[in-house]
């Protein structure tokens, strides 16, 4: 086989989690907890002790261990997430960010440290950024392409997604967790083959907060568009999709996306929405759990769709 597959996924959540009621009491939600529960959310994970780097390293080590890939076979590391000094500190990263920008601390690089700490001596390192919730999709897209064009056998994609500890945790009726997730992409082993992937960027929406309503308006037709193109590239019809692995946003929006995309037979794997909330890597966290739980079985057709502020719409069609 000549395709590229997802060979392993592992993730790490911080040790602390909070229910939506607690978050509301702390003033860290915009909506009433009951409304967020109706949208599917119950708890999220908040890093109070761990740094982004620690969780990123833990998830990367885990995926290497679980997949059985020899570290010497990793030819590429793609890192997306906290940069500079902010990657190494728990707590209020906003303050650190300011000081880090003023000092030489900004010249400390979590991506290359990962290569060093994991002993990936044959890997080159690339940072992937500016893609919001589609950072990990973007990393996998680049990894797949370089595997195909440069003969790299395995690429490690690492995402660390942290918000300032005391920040508001809700965006447009979606609650966000801190998390790290690592994915190994490599030459096909017969499972989890990436059949197609697509990504569209609409730069008009670069100001996410100011254009909130416009983004809400653009989200659905562009979701329909990118899903349709991905399915076309895969040679699938909408009815061929067995599972949709979501990003963990408001579940009501998913009902609409499935309807608009015409995926009448697809089941939405939404188990993690109430217990983990949204993270920038949630599609892949969900993919791991859906595969591990036996929900998604070998040979089934899976669609991952994600959206990232900036604004980006992206999808992967994968044969499990």
């Amino acid at each position, binding site marked *: 086989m000549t395709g590229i597959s997802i060979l392993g996924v592992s993730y790490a959540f911080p040790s602390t989690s909070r229910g939506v009621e607690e978050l509301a009491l702390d003033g860290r939600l915009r909506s009433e907890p009951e409304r967020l529960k109706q949208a599917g959310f119950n708890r999220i994970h908040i890093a109070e002790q761990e740094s982004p780097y620690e969780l990123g390293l833990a998830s990367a080590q885990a995926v290497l261990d679980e997949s059985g890939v020899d570290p010497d076979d990793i030819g590429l590391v793609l890192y997306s997430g906290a940069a500079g000094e902010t990657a190494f500190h728990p707590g209020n990263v906003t303050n650190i960010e300011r000081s880090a920008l003023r000092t030489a601390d900004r010249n400390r690089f979590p991506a290359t440290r990962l290569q060093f700490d994991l002993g990936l001596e044959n890997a080159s390192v690339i940072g992937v950024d500016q893609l919001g919730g589609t950072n990990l999709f973007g990393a996998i897209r680049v990894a797949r392409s370089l595997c195909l064009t440069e003969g790299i056998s395995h690429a490690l994609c690492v995402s660390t997604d942290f918000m300032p500890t005391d920040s508001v945790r809700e965006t447009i009726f979606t609650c966000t967790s801190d998390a790290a997730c690592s994915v190994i992409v490599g030459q096909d082993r017969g499972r989890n083959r990436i059949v197609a992937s697509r990504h569209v960027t609409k730069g008009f929406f670069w100001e996410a907060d100011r254009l909130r309503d416009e983004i809400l308006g653009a989200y659905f037709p*562009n979701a329909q568009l990118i899903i349709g193109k991905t399915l076309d590239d895969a040679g699938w019809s909408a009815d061929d999709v067995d599972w949709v692995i979501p990003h963990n946003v408001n579940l009501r929006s998913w009902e609409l996306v499935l309807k608009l995309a015409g995926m009448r037979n697809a089941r939405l794997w939404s188990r993690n929405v109430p217990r983990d909330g949204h993270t920038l890597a949630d599609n892949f966290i969900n993919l791991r759990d859906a595969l591990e739980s036996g929900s998604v079985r070998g040979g089934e057709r899976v669609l991952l769709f994600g959206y990232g502020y900036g604004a980006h719409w992206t999808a992967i069609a994968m044969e499990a």
Partner: protein
Amino acid sequence: MMVDRILITGATGLLGGLLLRSLSVKYPEADILVMVREPKRWIEYLSGFGLMDRRVAPVAGDLLVPGVGLTPEARAALGGRFSSIIHLAADTCLTSDLEQARAVNVEGTRQLLEATEVGGSPFCLVSTALVAGLRTGRIMESDLPSRAGWANAHEQSKAEAEEVVRSSGRDFTIMRSSPIVCDTSAGRVTRYSPLFQLLRFIHAGFTPVLPGRADSPVDVVPADFVADAIRDLAFRRETRGATFHLCAGEGAATLENIIEWSWEVWSEDPLWRRRSITSPVLTDFYTYQLFETAALETGDAPLVRLFSQMGGLVPHFAHAKHFDTSGADAALGYRAPSVSSYWRAIAAEVNRSVGTGALESAA
């Protein structure tokens, strides 16, 4: 028929103003009485409208008040017979609740009928074609209003007003207009209709989903056509007891048409084109409602307000209907201009109005 005395309500609206002008031209010798709430402001309005004509006189009347609130002088002015009473005044707001809409549209009509009963003058009710409500298919002019429900209280109250007129025992003519989308057959727009507002939201990218199919009819008319049609139907004996559709009919557009034509025009503006706004996805009503709910739950206050306004309009796209206009066509000898003949001008006006920040002020 000799036309020498006319009473009009709702003359201060867009349609009323155009009708007044049209009547003044066609019947220069007729005395026209306009019922307004504040006669003092009428003079100001009339001069603004370029109709400083001594034969157009105001009479104080308020449809929300029993007996239309007529003073003895006003009651005297309304005595005698009119060539026709043209009742345009209405609550046309799509977000009014049923009580508000009924107060003006049903009770107001009843009050006006009673206040003018002495003269027994012919009564023309200007209604809406959307009294067909959520019916689908071909709607004939002789069809009574919907039993399939309505998209908003305005339609329901106008349907009830028709019943009031029909059962009044007066000579009547009912003229049901399609939604007015522009002032003139050239597509000039000075007042923003609900459909125009919807176009502005689509232009701004706020309306990614619309209920309906590509071939769902969009039947709209310019105000000048409606004004002329009222003028030409209101005074004829053979129209008594009849109902007419003042609609585009065969000249209606489709949802696909109006989106395509609008995109053609808007795409000529490089600034708009760079926004990469995707044309609305046409879908079933249930799916549209999912989006509407999402927008109402998650949107900022202006977006919520905009969607609330649209709630009374968009269900019609999902309840496709074709308005038969054969009676009006025969009686008038002309038809409404086809929507295709002026839609691009409307789309251009949408682009201009949003470009000047009018959307923010509307929101």
